[in-house]
């Protein structure tokens, strides 16, 4: 079961990458919102490819979390330290990839989330040095775009390759099937025009916990640390063999608290 879930994970990642490459033919970062609307409403099958990209990415996260949970419950690790570290690194980057994708839709929610992320980086010591890697004064989404289509897929692909060591293409069709199934069950969130006035705008679902922590007046540095806690725990899981149960409880506690702040 565990092995199938991990291969479905990889298949969904591949579906997401391929659909993303297709979208890249039409998407233009200098005219981001308009090009997203063009893809959705004008380009033949544009909405189909956009939905495939969206749902395969969301499902990838769901299956990845499931894969991690099943792995953690075993208390035994069969892979090497480097393979484990690469997988944690890939997971961290995956959320970053999802976030940049959310910004790239360039609607009111996307641009606000991007602005909050830039402010979070700007107001965090040390991290502030890296602000120029994300901020562009001319085209807001430009550097998010570069990360999303180039650096992050390459880095994550490399980390996944180091983690799995081989590819199984037969699961691709299952990944695609699950994507279509979720397209039939769920609706993709609507894009909100930048000129609208909304009482409340939100970031992607996994970032809402961090946003609500910011609402509570928690400092950006502390919010960054809270976001990084599960990744630090996952790294230590490999090395602290006798403390794995404790780490699992800590992860569960973190997940419960973060979920509380997502739904607060």
């Amino acid at each position: 079961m565990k092995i199938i879930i991990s291969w479905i994970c990889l298949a969904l990642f591949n579906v997401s990458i391929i659909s993303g490459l297709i979208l890249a033919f039409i998407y233009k970062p200098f005219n981001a919102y308009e090009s997203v609307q063009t893809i959705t409403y004008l380009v033949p099958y544009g909405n189909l490819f956009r939905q495939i990209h969206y749902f395969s990415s969301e499902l990838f996260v769901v299956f990845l979390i499931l894969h991690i949970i099943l792995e953690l419950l075993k208390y035994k690790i069969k892979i090497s330290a480097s393979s484990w570290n690469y997988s944690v690194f890939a997971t961290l980057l995956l959320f970053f990839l999802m976030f940049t994708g959310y910004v790239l839709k360039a609607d009111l929610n996307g641009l606000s989330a991007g602005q909050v992320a830039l402010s979070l980086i700007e107001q965090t010591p040390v991290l502030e040095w890296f602000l120029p890697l994300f901020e562009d004064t001319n085209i807001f989404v430009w550097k998010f775009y570069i990360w999303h289509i180039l650096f992050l897929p390459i880095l994550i692909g490399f980390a996944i390759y180091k983690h799995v060591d081989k590819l199984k293409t037969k699961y691709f069709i299952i990944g695609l099937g699950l994507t279509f199934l979720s397209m039939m069950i769920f609706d993709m969130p609507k894009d909100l025009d930048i000129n609208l006035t909304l009482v409340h705008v939100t970031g992607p679902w996994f970032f809402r916990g961090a946003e609500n922590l910011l609402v509570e007046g928690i400092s950006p540095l502390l919010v960054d640390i809270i976001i990084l806690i599960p990744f630090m725990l996952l790294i230590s899981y490999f090395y602290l063999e006798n403390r794995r149960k404790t780490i699992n409880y800590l992860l569960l506690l973190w997940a419960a608290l973060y979920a509380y702040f997502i739904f607060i």
Partner: protein
Amino acid sequence: MKDQVPIMDQYNLKDVNPKRRKILKTIVKALPFIGGASLVYPLYEFTSFSQSKKFSLAIPLDKLTSPVTKHTKALIKKEGEKIQVFDSRCTHMGCILNIDNKNNKFVCPCHSSEFDLNGKRLKGPAKRDLDILDYKIENEILYIG
């Protein structure tokens, strides 16, 4: 042919200093890293390049029909002849503020900070008042920035 000396014997191997050879090997191995590291600062400077964040807006005064006008870059408050211009970004995380006409305040749609129409902070998480922008009026046109 008998006088021919094997090629290795032509060198006096006693002269070879293993320590020096080890140092040379280390230097050769380190060269790519030194080369890579020497590019870190230029790379940082390259990616840090950005054009000025300053902007300028020109709005005809007759367009300012309501007491408070929202623009993506500025919030303009007009009371008779008196004009005040605030940065439209929240001082907490930079989200573009909304105008709450009913309660006469600016509200952040991201984290619910509130400011009065004079830019004073009413409610957090923002910790300071809104930034005031410079402006001038020439030929009935408001120039901001």
